[in-house]
């Protein structure tokens, strides 16, 4: 944590190496967060790049005493996606064609993974916006409750409650899907 603070401090002062290390730390998670929300690999790749470009352009004005760096970064990602949806108003590409898969899985595993992901992502569509955001931040972004709370400008209690209700809702949706598929 202290190391990240130091890196952020250095990055704010124009140290490119420090920013590069922050980039490497957060790149995969930001990509996963974006992909879960956009559900299109190509678009998610573009968006992930944009998030870091924006972060690099703005890091000089980032106030360390305000929100944690992680929360600040995910706010950028969130805002980029809001802009994207507003401007593009594109319909999501079917999951089968767009979603990336884990590099280390075999073919059978890949199909299984895609199907699992498709089910889960479809289930998240039944959630409220706030619930979906909590799930994305916690599971895709790997943010702690505190970081998610800062990102969403809510209390930690509220985030825990949203998380709880979201998983409950996902459970019900997934169960209903299984029963419907029988």
């Amino acid at each position: 944590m202290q190391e990240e603070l130091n890196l952020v401090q250095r990055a704010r002062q124009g140290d490119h190496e420090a920013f590069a290390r922050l980039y490497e730390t957060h790149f995969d998670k930001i990509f996963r967060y974006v992909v879960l929300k956009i559900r299109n690999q190509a678009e998610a790749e573009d968006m992930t790049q944009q998030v870091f470009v924006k972060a690099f352009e703005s890091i000089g004005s980032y106030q360390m005493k305000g929100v944690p760096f992680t929360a600040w970064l995910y706010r950028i990602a969130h805002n980029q996606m809001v802009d994207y949806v507003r401007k593009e108003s594109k319909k999501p590409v079917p999951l089968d064609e767009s979603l990336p898969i884990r590099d280390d899985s075999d073919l059978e595993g890949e199909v299984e993974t895609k199907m699992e992901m498709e089910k889960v992502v479809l289930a998240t569509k039944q959630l409220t916006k706030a619930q979906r955001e909590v799930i994305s931040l916690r599971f895709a972004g790997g943010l702690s409750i505190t970081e998610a709370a800062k990102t969403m400008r809510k209390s930690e209690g509220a985030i825990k409650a949203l998380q709880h209700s979201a998983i409950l809702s996902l459970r019900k949706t997934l169960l209903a899907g299984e029963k419907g598929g029988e």
Partner: protein
Amino acid sequence: MGNNKQFSNILNDCLERLITGQETVEQCLQRYPEYIDELEPLLRTAALMNKAIDVKPSDDFRARARYQMQLKMAEIKASHRVTHVVPRWAIAVCTVMLVFVLGSGTILASAGSMPGSPLYAVKLAAENVQVKLAWSQDKKTELYVAMADERVTEMTWMVNNNKTQGLEVAAQRLDSYYNKIGILPLAENTETAFSSASQAAAPAFTTAIATTTPLALSAPTITLASGATDKNDVTTPAPVTIITPIAVAPTVTVIEVPAAGQREDNVITITGNQFNTSNNSKLMNILIYNAITQPEKIQQLLDSDKVPESVKPTLRRALAASKIGYQNAINNLNNTSP
């Protein structure tokens, strides 16, 4: 309500460990046996979610993104530095002069001025205006190469005349030109740049980009030593070196250019059919020539006892940037050649 809050905390405790891989569902349930009925279905769902979204960016995307980010960082860094250093009045004066009185006495007089001279700001401004008026990316690249060469000449002059107080600023300018040189040819062929990213000498993400060359850019004629076709004729300037034509593909040549006393870290590898007679050949020759000479001159400055230690980190950065910038520029130009 209180129970619900308590359960949310327990659920969160388990999720925290589940998401970070510290615990399995079973291990968590063992810690809270009294909540097992309520907790288990939720944790199973969470585990499914965790597994399902465990996607990773492809290696190809990762490499492309890193390269693009590197370029963006260099671009922003360069634009921040250059635009703030030259006074606006000087740019305005030079624009008017260049447009209406091209070759005016003031500008010509400023051309030979050195840092500290009253006309030095006019010289910098005139250079920037020339870049702004350049009609192509290749021309801009040529100009930046020339400007970089000019800065190195000035730095050498400053060191020789014990006027080292302006060295840091000059070195920063130099670094920014190198960034531009590495980027500019890309601007005309982004797609090629992307496709070459993976092979472009693994763009070290943390370094800047660079390149340099003399202002009155007469492209040096480069002549190949032996064993190559006429098309590949190349002449290397004095300190240069090993030329190995590859027999299988006559248009492909690999040159390793050890600069500054054969130091291994100064070797730039040039690969491809860049030594042709196409429209790009002049720029290519300029790039190759300066890829050899510039790092050597910077290294000489670094080796000088007269250069303050406080300036050397910036010089080292510029040296590293020059190598990457030239390498990128040459690779990119090579990829855009017919």
